[in-house]
Protein backbone atom coordinates (compact mmCIF):
# COMPACT_ATOMS: atom_id res chain seq x y z
CA UNK A 1 0.00 0.00 0.00
CA UNK A 2 1.25 3.46 -0.87
CA UNK A 3 2.87 5.16 2.11
CA UNK A 4 0.97 8.42 1.70
CA UNK A 5 -2.32 6.52 1.83
CA UNK A 6 -1.12 4.84 5.03
CA UNK A 7 -0.44 8.25 6.62
CA UNK A 8 -3.89 9.52 5.62
CA UNK A 9 -5.62 6.42 7.00
CA UNK A 10 -3.71 6.84 10.25
CA UNK A 11 -4.81 10.47 10.58
CA UNK A 12 -8.44 9.43 10.02
CA UNK A 13 -8.12 6.68 12.61
CA UNK A 14 -6.62 9.08 15.17
CA UNK A 15 -9.56 11.45 14.66
CA UNK A 16 -12.04 8.59 14.99
CA UNK A 17 -10.51 7.38 18.27
CA UNK A 18 -9.99 10.83 19.77
CA UNK A 19 -13.55 11.95 18.98
CA UNK A 20 -15.30 8.95 20.58
CA UNK A 21 -16.34 10.93 23.72
CA UNK A 22 -18.45 13.18 21.47
CA UNK A 23 -20.42 10.51 19.66
CA UNK A 24 -20.12 7.16 21.45
CA UNK A 25 -20.98 5.46 24.73
CA UNK A 26 -18.57 5.26 27.65
CA UNK A 27 -17.98 1.63 26.81
CA UNK A 28 -16.73 2.59 23.35
CA UNK A 29 -14.57 5.35 24.85
CA UNK A 30 -12.88 2.79 27.10
CA UNK A 31 -12.44 0.50 24.15
CA UNK A 32 -10.80 3.38 22.26
CA UNK A 33 -8.36 3.87 25.14
CA UNK A 34 -7.43 0.19 25.01
CA UNK A 35 -7.09 0.25 21.22
CA UNK A 36 -4.82 3.31 21.34
CA UNK A 37 -2.79 1.71 24.12
CA UNK A 38 -2.35 -1.57 22.25
CA UNK A 39 -1.56 0.33 19.04
CA UNK A 40 1.34 2.03 20.81
CA UNK A 41 2.55 -1.35 22.12
CA UNK A 42 2.20 -3.00 18.70
CA UNK A 43 3.94 -0.12 16.91
CA UNK A 44 6.75 -0.50 19.45
CA UNK A 45 7.00 -4.26 18.88
CA UNK A 46 7.19 -3.59 15.15
CA UNK A 47 10.71 -2.12 15.53
CA UNK A 48 12.25 -5.38 16.69
CA UNK A 49 9.69 -7.92 15.43
CA UNK A 50 8.72 -6.30 12.15
CA UNK A 51 11.68 -4.26 10.90
CA UNK A 52 14.48 -6.42 12.37
CA UNK A 53 12.52 -9.70 12.21
CA UNK A 54 13.40 -10.77 15.75
CA UNK A 55 10.39 -12.56 17.33
CA UNK A 56 10.39 -10.76 20.68
CA UNK A 57 7.98 -11.79 23.42
CA UNK A 58 9.29 -9.25 25.91
CA UNK A 59 6.44 -6.73 25.60
CA UNK A 60 4.84 -7.68 28.93
CA UNK A 61 8.21 -7.37 30.70
CA UNK A 62 8.63 -3.81 29.44
CA UNK A 63 4.99 -2.93 30.10
CA UNK A 64 5.17 -4.37 33.63
CA UNK A 65 8.44 -2.65 34.39
CA UNK A 66 6.87 0.59 33.20
CA UNK A 67 3.89 0.00 35.51
CA UNK A 68 6.12 -0.52 38.52
CA UNK A 69 8.71 2.15 37.71
CA UNK A 70 5.91 4.69 37.20
CA UNK A 71 4.01 3.60 40.30
CA UNK A 72 7.10 3.66 42.53
CA UNK A 73 8.14 7.06 41.15
CA UNK A 74 4.66 8.46 41.78
CA UNK A 75 4.60 7.04 45.30
CA UNK A 76 7.98 8.68 45.90
CA UNK A 77 6.27 12.01 45.25
CA UNK A 78 7.27 12.62 41.64
CA UNK A 79 4.42 14.27 39.68
CA UNK A 80 2.44 11.89 37.46
CA UNK A 81 3.67 12.93 34.01
CA UNK A 82 7.29 13.14 35.17
CA UNK A 83 6.91 9.66 36.69
CA UNK A 84 5.91 8.38 33.25
CA UNK A 85 9.13 9.89 31.89
CA UNK A 86 11.10 8.12 34.63
CA UNK A 87 9.41 4.83 33.72
CA UNK A 88 10.21 5.37 30.03
CA UNK A 89 13.90 5.94 30.68
CA UNK A 90 14.16 3.08 33.18
CA UNK A 91 12.54 0.62 30.76
CA UNK A 92 14.68 1.84 27.87
CA UNK A 93 17.89 1.46 29.89
CA UNK A 94 16.83 -2.02 30.99
CA UNK A 95 16.15 -3.06 27.38
CA UNK A 96 19.45 -1.66 26.11
CA UNK A 97 21.44 -3.56 28.74
CA UNK A 98 19.42 -6.74 28.28
CA UNK A 99 19.45 -6.50 24.48
CA UNK A 100 23.24 -6.55 24.35
CA UNK A 101 23.00 -9.99 25.98
CA UNK A 102 19.98 -11.77 24.54
CA UNK A 103 20.26 -10.43 20.98
CA UNK A 104 23.15 -12.86 20.53
CA UNK A 105 20.42 -15.50 20.27
CA UNK A 106 18.63 -15.92 16.98
CA UNK A 107 15.26 -17.26 15.81
CA UNK A 108 13.46 -19.61 18.18
CA UNK A 109 16.18 -19.30 20.81
CA UNK A 110 15.69 -15.55 20.94
CA UNK A 111 11.92 -16.04 21.21
CA UNK A 112 12.31 -18.38 24.19
CA UNK A 113 14.87 -16.11 25.82
CA UNK A 114 12.59 -13.11 25.46
CA UNK A 115 9.67 -14.98 27.09
CA UNK A 116 11.94 -15.96 29.96
CA UNK A 117 12.63 -12.26 30.53
CA UNK A 118 8.93 -11.68 31.30
CA UNK A 119 8.90 -14.47 33.89
CA UNK A 120 12.19 -13.44 35.51
CA UNK A 121 11.15 -9.80 35.88
CA UNK A 122 7.72 -10.85 37.21
CA UNK A 123 9.31 -13.15 39.80
CA UNK A 124 11.77 -10.50 40.93
CA UNK A 125 8.96 -7.92 41.29
CA UNK A 126 6.66 -10.28 43.20
CA UNK A 127 9.46 -11.52 45.50
CA UNK A 128 10.82 -8.09 46.31
CA UNK A 129 7.95 -7.37 48.68
CA UNK A 130 9.61 -4.57 50.66
CA UNK A 131 9.80 -2.39 47.57
CA UNK A 132 6.97 -3.53 45.35
CA UNK A 133 4.39 -4.84 47.82
CA UNK A 134 4.83 -8.30 46.37
CA UNK A 135 1.61 -10.16 45.55
CA UNK A 136 -0.47 -7.50 47.33
CA UNK A 137 0.34 -5.03 44.60
CA UNK A 138 0.59 -1.25 44.84
CA UNK A 139 -2.03 1.49 45.10
CA UNK A 140 -1.66 4.74 43.25
CA UNK A 141 -3.33 8.08 43.86
CA UNK A 142 -6.57 8.19 41.82
CA UNK A 143 -7.34 11.11 39.57
CA UNK A 144 -10.39 13.10 40.62
CA UNK A 145 -13.47 13.55 38.43
CA UNK A 146 -15.03 10.10 38.28
CA UNK A 147 -14.24 7.14 36.03
CA UNK A 148 -15.69 8.55 32.80
CA UNK A 149 -13.80 11.83 33.02
CA UNK A 150 -10.62 9.93 33.86
CA UNK A 151 -11.14 7.64 30.83
CA UNK A 152 -11.31 10.76 28.64
CA UNK A 153 -8.02 12.04 30.02
CA UNK A 154 -6.35 8.72 29.36
CA UNK A 155 -7.85 8.55 25.90
CA UNK A 156 -5.88 11.70 25.09
CA UNK A 157 -2.76 10.28 26.76
CA UNK A 158 -2.87 6.94 24.94
CA UNK A 159 -3.75 8.47 21.55
CA UNK A 160 -0.79 10.84 22.01
CA UNK A 161 1.50 7.91 22.74
CA UNK A 162 0.14 6.12 19.69
CA UNK A 163 0.90 9.19 17.54
CA UNK A 164 4.43 9.49 18.97
CA UNK A 165 5.26 5.83 18.28
CA UNK A 166 3.75 6.17 14.80
CA UNK A 167 5.88 9.24 14.01
CA UNK A 168 9.01 7.41 15.16
CA UNK A 169 7.99 4.48 12.97
CA UNK A 170 7.65 6.79 9.97
CA UNK A 171 11.09 8.24 10.70
CA UNK A 172 12.72 4.81 11.13
CA UNK A 173 11.01 3.54 7.98
CA UNK A 174 12.67 6.26 5.89
CA UNK A 175 16.04 6.44 7.64
CA UNK A 176 19.17 4.36 7.29
CA UNK A 177 18.24 2.70 10.58
CA UNK A 178 15.13 1.21 8.98
CA UNK A 179 17.05 0.18 5.88
CA UNK A 180 19.68 -1.54 8.00
CA UNK A 181 17.05 -3.31 10.12
CA UNK A 182 15.35 -4.62 6.97
CA UNK A 183 18.69 -5.96 5.80
CA UNK A 184 19.10 -7.73 9.14
CA UNK A 185 15.59 -9.15 8.84
CA UNK A 186 16.34 -10.63 5.42
CA UNK A 187 19.85 -11.93 5.91
CA UNK A 188 21.79 -10.99 9.01
CA UNK A 189 25.16 -12.32 7.83
CA UNK A 190 24.87 -10.53 4.51
CA UNK A 191 23.90 -7.33 6.36
CA UNK A 192 27.03 -7.62 8.47
CA UNK A 193 29.11 -8.11 5.32
CA UNK A 194 27.46 -5.15 3.62
CA UNK A 195 28.70 -2.95 6.47
CA UNK A 196 25.70 -2.79 8.83
CA UNK A 197 26.72 -2.63 12.49
CA UNK A 198 24.26 -5.38 13.31
CA UNK A 199 24.78 -5.53 17.08
CA UNK A 200 24.25 -1.79 17.46
CA UNK A 201 21.20 -1.74 15.18
CA UNK A 202 19.54 -4.66 16.94
CA UNK A 203 20.09 -3.08 20.36
CA UNK A 204 18.60 0.21 19.08
CA UNK A 205 15.57 -1.66 17.69
CA UNK A 206 15.09 -3.61 20.92
CA UNK A 207 15.38 -0.42 22.99
CA UNK A 208 12.87 1.36 20.74
CA UNK A 209 10.54 -1.61 21.18
CA UNK A 210 10.75 -1.16 24.97
CA UNK A 211 10.79 2.60 25.43
CA UNK A 212 7.12 3.38 24.91
CA UNK A 213 5.95 0.11 26.46
CA UNK A 214 7.41 1.66 29.61
CA UNK A 215 5.45 4.90 29.12
CA UNK A 216 2.25 3.04 28.29
CA UNK A 217 2.69 0.80 31.35
CA UNK A 218 3.20 3.77 33.66
CA UNK A 219 0.18 5.56 32.20
CA UNK A 220 -1.90 2.39 32.54
CA UNK A 221 -0.88 2.14 36.21
CA UNK A 222 -1.98 5.72 36.81
CA UNK A 223 -5.26 5.04 35.01
CA UNK A 224 -6.27 1.93 36.96
CA UNK A 225 -4.88 3.14 40.31
CA UNK A 226 -3.79 -0.35 41.33
CA UNK A 227 -1.20 -2.75 39.93
CA UNK A 228 -0.10 -6.27 40.85
CA UNK A 229 2.44 -8.65 39.27
CA UNK A 230 -0.12 -10.95 37.59
CA UNK A 231 -1.91 -8.09 35.87
CA UNK A 232 1.25 -6.19 34.89
CA UNK A 233 3.20 -9.14 33.47
CA UNK A 234 0.47 -11.02 31.64
CA UNK A 235 1.58 -13.67 29.18
CA UNK A 236 -1.58 -12.94 27.15
CA UNK A 237 -0.30 -9.44 26.41
CA UNK A 238 3.11 -10.69 25.37
CA UNK A 239 1.47 -13.00 22.81
CA UNK A 240 -1.33 -10.65 21.74
CA UNK A 241 0.93 -7.79 20.70
CA UNK A 242 3.02 -9.78 18.16
CA UNK A 243 -0.15 -11.44 16.83
CA UNK A 244 -1.75 -8.03 16.27
CA UNK A 245 1.32 -6.85 14.39
CA UNK A 246 1.51 -10.02 12.26
CA UNK A 247 -2.18 -9.71 11.51
CA UNK A 248 -1.81 -6.16 10.21
CA UNK A 249 1.53 -6.41 8.43
CA UNK A 250 4.91 -6.59 10.20
CA UNK A 251 7.58 -4.15 9.07
CA UNK A 252 5.06 -1.72 7.59
CA UNK A 253 4.09 1.69 8.95
CA UNK A 254 0.36 1.24 9.31
CA UNK A 255 0.19 -2.56 9.70
CA UNK A 256 0.48 -2.59 13.50
CA UNK A 257 -2.39 -0.08 13.81
CA UNK A 258 -4.64 -2.00 11.41
CA UNK A 259 -3.79 -5.28 13.11
CA UNK A 260 -4.64 -3.89 16.54
CA UNK A 261 -7.95 -2.53 15.32
CA UNK A 262 -8.87 -5.77 13.52
CA UNK A 263 -7.85 -7.97 16.45
CA UNK A 264 -9.79 -5.87 18.97
CA UNK A 265 -12.83 -5.96 16.73
CA UNK A 266 -12.64 -9.77 16.47
CA UNK A 267 -12.12 -10.05 20.21
CA UNK A 268 -15.19 -7.92 20.89
CA UNK A 269 -17.35 -9.89 18.46
CA UNK A 270 -16.39 -13.25 19.90
CA UNK A 271 -16.56 -11.98 23.47
CA UNK A 272 -20.07 -10.71 22.95
CA UNK A 273 -21.39 -13.77 21.10
CA UNK A 274 -19.51 -16.76 22.49
CA UNK A 275 -18.84 -16.10 26.16
CA UNK A 276 -17.57 -19.61 26.90
CA UNK A 277 -15.46 -20.38 23.88
CA UNK A 278 -14.32 -16.93 22.78
CA UNK A 279 -10.62 -17.56 23.45
CA UNK A 280 -10.69 -20.86 21.56
CA UNK A 281 -12.45 -19.32 18.55
CA UNK A 282 -10.08 -16.38 18.60
CA UNK A 283 -7.13 -18.77 18.66
CA UNK A 284 -8.46 -20.65 15.64
CA UNK A 285 -9.06 -17.40 13.77
CA UNK A 286 -5.52 -16.24 14.51
CA UNK A 287 -4.05 -19.49 13.21
CA UNK A 288 -6.14 -19.31 10.03
CA UNK A 289 -5.33 -15.64 9.40
CA UNK A 290 -1.60 -16.07 9.90
CA UNK A 291 -1.60 -19.24 7.84
CA UNK A 292 -3.34 -17.65 4.86
CA UNK A 293 -2.08 -14.09 5.28
CA UNK A 294 1.61 -14.38 6.16
CA UNK A 295 2.23 -10.76 5.13
CA UNK A 296 -0.75 -9.43 7.11
CA UNK A 297 -3.85 -7.53 6.03
CA UNK A 298 -1.75 -4.81 4.39
CA UNK A 299 -0.18 -7.32 2.01
CA UNK A 300 -3.46 -8.19 0.33
CA UNK A 301 -3.75 -6.80 -3.16
CA UNK A 302 -7.10 -5.07 -2.75
CA UNK A 303 -7.11 -3.92 -6.32
CA UNK A 304 -6.62 -7.51 -7.48
CA UNK A 305 -9.32 -8.67 -5.10
CA UNK A 306 -11.73 -6.05 -6.46
CA UNK A 307 -10.90 -6.99 -10.02
CA UNK A 308 -11.54 -10.65 -9.26
CA UNK A 309 -14.92 -9.95 -7.61
CA UNK A 310 -15.85 -7.55 -10.37
CA UNK A 311 -14.71 -9.98 -13.03
CA UNK A 312 -16.77 -12.76 -11.52
CA UNK A 313 -19.88 -10.61 -11.44
CA UNK A 314 -19.33 -9.77 -15.08
CA UNK A 315 -18.97 -13.41 -15.94
CA UNK A 316 -22.18 -14.21 -14.10
CA UNK A 317 -24.04 -11.49 -15.99
Amino acid sequence: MDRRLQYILFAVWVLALASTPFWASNYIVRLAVVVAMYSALTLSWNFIGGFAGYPSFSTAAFFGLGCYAGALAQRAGIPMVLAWGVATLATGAFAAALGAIILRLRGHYFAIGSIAVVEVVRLVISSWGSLTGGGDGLNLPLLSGGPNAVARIFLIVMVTLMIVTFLITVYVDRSRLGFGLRCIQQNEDAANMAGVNITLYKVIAYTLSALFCGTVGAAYASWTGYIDPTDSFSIIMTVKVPVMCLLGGPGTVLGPVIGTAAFTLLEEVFWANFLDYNRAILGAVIVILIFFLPGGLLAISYRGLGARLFGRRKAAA
Partner: protein
Amino acid sequence: MTILVAERVSRNFGGIRAIDDLSFALNQGEIVALIGPNGAGKTTLVNLLTGVLRPSSGHIRFEGADVTAQRPFEAARRGLARTFQIVQPFPRMSVLENVAAAALFGGKQESVAAAMGVAREQLEFTGLTAFADRPASALTLAGRKRLELAKSMATSPKVLMLDEVNAGLNSGEIDGALALIHQIADRGVTILVIEHLMKVVLSLAQRVLVLHHGQLIAEGPAQQVVRDPRVVEAYLGEKFAKRFGVEAAQGEVAHG
Protein backbone atom coordinates in the same frame (compact mmCIF):
# COMPACT_ATOMS: atom_id res chain seq x y z
CA MET B 1 53.51 -1.50 -2.03
CA THR B 2 51.71 -4.08 0.06
CA ILE B 3 48.09 -3.42 0.96
CA LEU B 4 46.94 -6.58 2.75
CA VAL B 5 49.30 -8.74 4.77
CA ALA B 6 48.81 -11.98 6.69
CA GLU B 7 51.53 -12.67 9.24
CA ARG B 8 51.87 -16.24 10.51
CA VAL B 9 48.10 -16.64 10.69
CA SER B 10 46.65 -19.87 12.11
CA ARG B 11 43.11 -20.92 12.77
CA ASN B 12 42.02 -24.06 14.61
CA PHE B 13 38.59 -25.68 14.61
CA GLY B 14 38.74 -28.01 17.58
CA GLY B 15 41.70 -30.25 16.83
CA ILE B 16 41.80 -29.36 13.14
CA ARG B 17 44.23 -26.75 11.94
CA ALA B 18 42.35 -25.22 9.02
CA ILE B 19 44.97 -22.53 8.43
CA ASP B 20 48.47 -23.32 9.54
CA ASP B 21 51.04 -20.59 10.13
CA LEU B 22 50.27 -18.85 6.87
CA SER B 23 51.98 -15.68 5.65
CA PHE B 24 51.46 -13.78 2.42
CA ALA B 25 51.04 -10.27 1.10
CA LEU B 26 48.93 -8.66 -1.60
CA ASN B 27 50.41 -5.72 -3.47
CA GLN B 28 48.39 -2.68 -4.40
CA GLY B 29 46.60 -3.21 -7.72
CA GLU B 30 47.55 -6.80 -8.50
CA ILE B 31 45.29 -9.76 -9.29
CA VAL B 32 46.23 -12.84 -7.29
CA ALA B 33 44.57 -16.25 -7.53
CA LEU B 34 44.18 -18.50 -4.54
CA ILE B 35 43.79 -22.12 -5.55
CA GLY B 36 43.81 -25.42 -3.73
CA PRO B 37 41.86 -28.67 -3.50
CA ASN B 38 38.50 -28.83 -1.71
CA GLY B 39 38.95 -28.38 2.03
CA ALA B 40 42.32 -26.70 1.65
CA GLY B 41 41.14 -23.73 3.72
CA LYS B 42 40.50 -21.14 0.99
CA THR B 43 37.16 -19.89 2.27
CA THR B 44 38.43 -20.03 5.86
CA LEU B 45 41.27 -17.74 4.80
CA VAL B 46 38.84 -15.23 3.25
CA ASN B 47 36.75 -15.41 6.41
CA LEU B 48 39.84 -14.59 8.47
CA LEU B 49 40.74 -11.67 6.21
CA THR B 50 37.23 -10.15 6.40
CA GLY B 51 36.64 -10.56 10.14
CA VAL B 52 34.05 -13.36 9.92
CA LEU B 53 36.50 -15.53 11.85
CA ARG B 54 39.26 -14.43 14.16
CA PRO B 55 42.70 -16.03 13.80
CA SER B 56 43.78 -18.35 16.62
CA SER B 57 47.19 -16.73 16.29
CA GLY B 58 48.97 -14.33 13.98
CA HIS B 59 48.09 -10.90 12.60
CA ILE B 60 46.37 -9.36 9.63
CA ARG B 61 47.39 -5.91 8.47
CA PHE B 62 45.50 -3.71 6.04
CA GLU B 63 47.18 -0.51 4.78
CA GLY B 64 49.64 -0.79 7.64
CA ALA B 65 47.02 -1.01 10.42
CA ASP B 66 46.45 -4.15 12.48
CA VAL B 67 42.92 -5.37 11.63
CA THR B 68 43.15 -8.84 13.20
CA ALA B 69 40.22 -8.22 15.55
CA GLN B 70 37.91 -6.42 13.09
CA ARG B 71 34.29 -7.41 12.66
CA PRO B 72 32.80 -8.04 9.19
CA PHE B 73 30.99 -4.69 8.97
CA GLU B 74 34.23 -2.89 9.87
CA ALA B 75 36.06 -4.77 7.12
CA ALA B 76 33.40 -3.71 4.62
CA ARG B 77 33.68 -0.06 5.67
CA ARG B 78 37.48 -0.18 5.44
CA GLY B 79 37.37 -1.31 1.83
CA LEU B 80 37.83 -5.05 2.26
CA ALA B 81 34.99 -6.44 0.18
CA ARG B 82 34.14 -10.01 -0.67
CA THR B 83 31.63 -12.07 -2.57
CA PHE B 84 30.27 -15.32 -1.22
CA GLN B 85 30.68 -18.74 -2.75
CA ILE B 86 27.06 -19.32 -1.79
CA VAL B 87 25.36 -16.08 -2.84
CA GLN B 88 23.87 -14.02 -0.03
CA PRO B 89 21.24 -11.59 -1.34
CA PHE B 90 18.50 -9.85 0.63
CA PRO B 91 15.87 -11.99 -1.12
CA ARG B 92 12.73 -9.85 -0.76
CA MET B 93 14.43 -6.55 -1.53
CA SER B 94 14.77 -5.31 -5.08
CA VAL B 95 18.08 -5.73 -6.88
CA LEU B 96 18.58 -1.96 -6.60
CA GLU B 97 17.96 -1.96 -2.84
CA ASN B 98 20.40 -4.84 -2.38
CA VAL B 99 23.17 -2.81 -3.94
CA ALA B 100 22.05 0.41 -2.23
CA ALA B 101 22.37 -1.30 1.17
CA ALA B 102 26.02 -2.07 0.46
CA ALA B 103 26.60 1.50 -0.77
CA LEU B 104 24.85 3.05 2.24
CA PHE B 105 26.55 1.04 4.97
CA GLY B 106 29.77 -0.37 3.51
CA GLY B 107 30.30 2.52 1.11
CA LYS B 108 29.46 5.04 3.85
CA GLN B 109 27.11 7.11 1.65
CA GLU B 110 25.52 10.10 3.35
CA SER B 111 21.88 9.30 2.64
CA VAL B 112 19.60 6.62 1.26
CA ALA B 113 19.12 8.75 -1.88
CA ALA B 114 22.89 9.03 -2.48
CA ALA B 115 23.23 5.28 -1.96
CA MET B 116 20.54 4.65 -4.56
CA GLY B 117 22.54 6.77 -7.03
CA VAL B 118 25.72 4.76 -6.42
CA ALA B 119 23.70 1.56 -6.70
CA ARG B 120 22.36 2.58 -10.13
CA GLU B 121 25.91 3.17 -11.36
CA GLN B 122 27.00 -0.26 -10.18
CA LEU B 123 23.97 -1.94 -11.76
CA GLU B 124 24.87 -0.23 -15.02
CA PHE B 125 28.47 -1.43 -14.64
CA THR B 126 27.47 -5.05 -13.98
CA GLY B 127 24.72 -5.06 -16.62
CA LEU B 128 21.84 -5.52 -14.16
CA THR B 129 20.01 -2.26 -14.86
CA ALA B 130 17.10 -4.07 -16.53
CA PHE B 131 16.52 -6.03 -13.30
CA ALA B 132 16.78 -3.06 -10.89
CA ASP B 133 13.21 -3.28 -9.61
CA ARG B 134 12.89 -7.07 -9.57
CA PRO B 135 13.28 -8.92 -6.28
CA ALA B 136 16.76 -10.39 -5.86
CA SER B 137 15.26 -13.85 -5.50
CA ALA B 138 14.01 -13.64 -9.11
CA LEU B 139 17.53 -13.52 -10.58
CA THR B 140 19.22 -16.51 -12.20
CA LEU B 141 22.41 -17.87 -10.63
CA ALA B 142 24.56 -15.89 -13.06
CA GLY B 143 22.50 -12.80 -12.20
CA ARG B 144 22.96 -13.37 -8.48
CA LYS B 145 26.71 -13.71 -8.89
CA ARG B 146 26.66 -10.39 -10.73
CA LEU B 147 24.57 -8.94 -7.92
CA GLU B 148 27.23 -10.08 -5.44
CA LEU B 149 29.82 -8.26 -7.56
CA ALA B 150 27.67 -5.13 -7.77
CA LYS B 151 27.14 -5.19 -4.00
CA SER B 152 30.83 -5.52 -3.23
CA MET B 153 31.71 -2.82 -5.77
CA ALA B 154 29.17 -0.47 -4.18
CA THR B 155 31.26 -0.41 -1.01
CA SER B 156 34.12 1.21 -3.01
CA PRO B 157 36.54 -1.58 -2.15
CA LYS B 158 40.31 -1.34 -2.11
CA VAL B 159 40.69 -5.10 -1.94
CA LEU B 160 38.08 -7.38 -3.47
CA MET B 161 37.98 -11.09 -2.64
CA LEU B 162 36.02 -13.17 -5.11
CA ASP B 163 35.08 -16.54 -3.66
CA GLU B 164 34.30 -18.75 -6.65
CA VAL B 165 32.27 -16.15 -8.55
CA ASN B 166 32.39 -18.39 -11.59
CA ALA B 167 31.31 -21.67 -10.01
CA GLY B 168 28.17 -23.02 -11.64
CA LEU B 169 28.25 -20.63 -14.61
CA ASN B 170 28.32 -21.72 -18.27
CA SER B 171 31.22 -20.71 -20.45
CA GLY B 172 29.46 -17.72 -22.02
CA GLU B 173 28.60 -16.41 -18.54
CA ILE B 174 32.19 -16.98 -17.41
CA ASP B 175 33.53 -14.87 -20.26
CA GLY B 176 31.18 -12.07 -19.21
CA ALA B 177 32.33 -12.35 -15.60
CA LEU B 178 36.01 -12.34 -16.62
CA ALA B 179 35.53 -9.16 -18.63
CA LEU B 180 33.94 -7.55 -15.56
CA ILE B 181 36.78 -8.61 -13.27
CA HIS B 182 39.31 -7.15 -15.71
CA GLN B 183 37.40 -3.86 -15.71
CA ILE B 184 37.35 -3.81 -11.91
CA ALA B 185 41.11 -4.41 -11.83
CA ASP B 186 41.59 -1.54 -14.30
CA ARG B 187 40.05 0.76 -11.70
CA GLY B 188 42.97 -0.03 -9.41
CA VAL B 189 41.20 -2.49 -7.12
CA THR B 190 43.42 -5.23 -5.72
CA ILE B 191 41.76 -8.59 -6.39
CA LEU B 192 42.12 -11.98 -4.76
CA VAL B 193 40.27 -14.64 -6.78
CA ILE B 194 39.50 -18.03 -5.34
CA GLU B 195 39.00 -20.35 -8.23
CA HIS B 196 38.82 -23.95 -9.30
CA LEU B 197 38.66 -23.18 -13.00
CA MET B 198 42.18 -23.04 -14.40
CA LYS B 199 40.93 -21.14 -17.45
CA VAL B 200 39.99 -18.29 -15.15
CA VAL B 201 43.17 -18.48 -13.12
CA LEU B 202 45.42 -18.47 -16.16
CA SER B 203 43.62 -15.61 -17.87
CA LEU B 204 43.39 -13.37 -14.79
CA ALA B 205 46.10 -13.86 -12.26
CA GLN B 206 49.54 -12.34 -12.29
CA ARG B 207 50.45 -14.48 -9.31
CA VAL B 208 49.02 -17.70 -7.84
CA LEU B 209 48.98 -18.89 -4.24
CA VAL B 210 48.41 -22.60 -3.71
CA LEU B 211 46.86 -23.69 -0.44
CA HIS B 212 46.88 -27.28 0.80
CA HIS B 213 45.98 -28.47 4.31
CA GLY B 214 46.00 -24.84 5.42
CA GLN B 215 49.55 -24.22 4.28
CA LEU B 216 50.94 -22.34 1.29
CA ILE B 217 52.74 -24.98 -0.76
CA ALA B 218 53.58 -22.89 -3.80
CA GLU B 219 53.53 -19.28 -4.93
CA GLY B 220 54.47 -17.67 -8.23
CA PRO B 221 53.33 -16.98 -11.80
CA ALA B 222 50.46 -19.21 -12.95
CA GLN B 223 52.35 -21.07 -15.68
CA GLN B 224 55.12 -21.98 -13.28
CA VAL B 225 52.87 -22.99 -10.39
CA VAL B 226 50.78 -25.48 -12.40
CA ARG B 227 53.96 -27.41 -13.24
CA ASP B 228 55.14 -27.52 -9.64
CA PRO B 229 55.18 -31.23 -8.64
CA ARG B 230 53.88 -30.43 -5.12
CA VAL B 231 50.85 -28.68 -6.63
CA VAL B 232 50.12 -31.53 -9.01
CA GLU B 233 50.44 -33.98 -6.13
CA ALA B 234 48.08 -31.94 -3.93
CA TYR B 235 45.41 -32.06 -6.62
CA LEU B 236 45.88 -35.56 -7.99
CA GLY B 237 47.44 -37.55 -5.14
CA GLU B 238 50.91 -39.07 -5.09
CA LYS B 239 50.21 -42.05 -7.38
CA PHE B 240 48.63 -40.07 -10.19
CA ALA B 241 51.15 -37.28 -9.85
CA LYS B 242 53.97 -39.73 -10.52
CA ARG B 243 52.25 -41.21 -13.55
CA PHE B 244 51.32 -37.73 -14.78
CA GLY B 245 54.91 -36.63 -14.30
CA VAL B 246 56.21 -39.55 -16.35
CA GLU B 247 53.66 -38.98 -19.11
CA ALA B 248 54.39 -35.27 -19.18
CA ALA B 249 58.08 -35.98 -19.50
CA GLN B 250 57.42 -38.50 -22.28
CA GLY B 251 55.16 -36.01 -23.99
CA GLU B 252 57.86 -33.38 -23.93
CA VAL B 253 60.36 -35.88 -25.40
CA ALA B 254 57.90 -36.85 -28.12
CA HIS B 255 57.18 -33.21 -28.97
CA GLY B 256 60.84 -32.27 -28.78
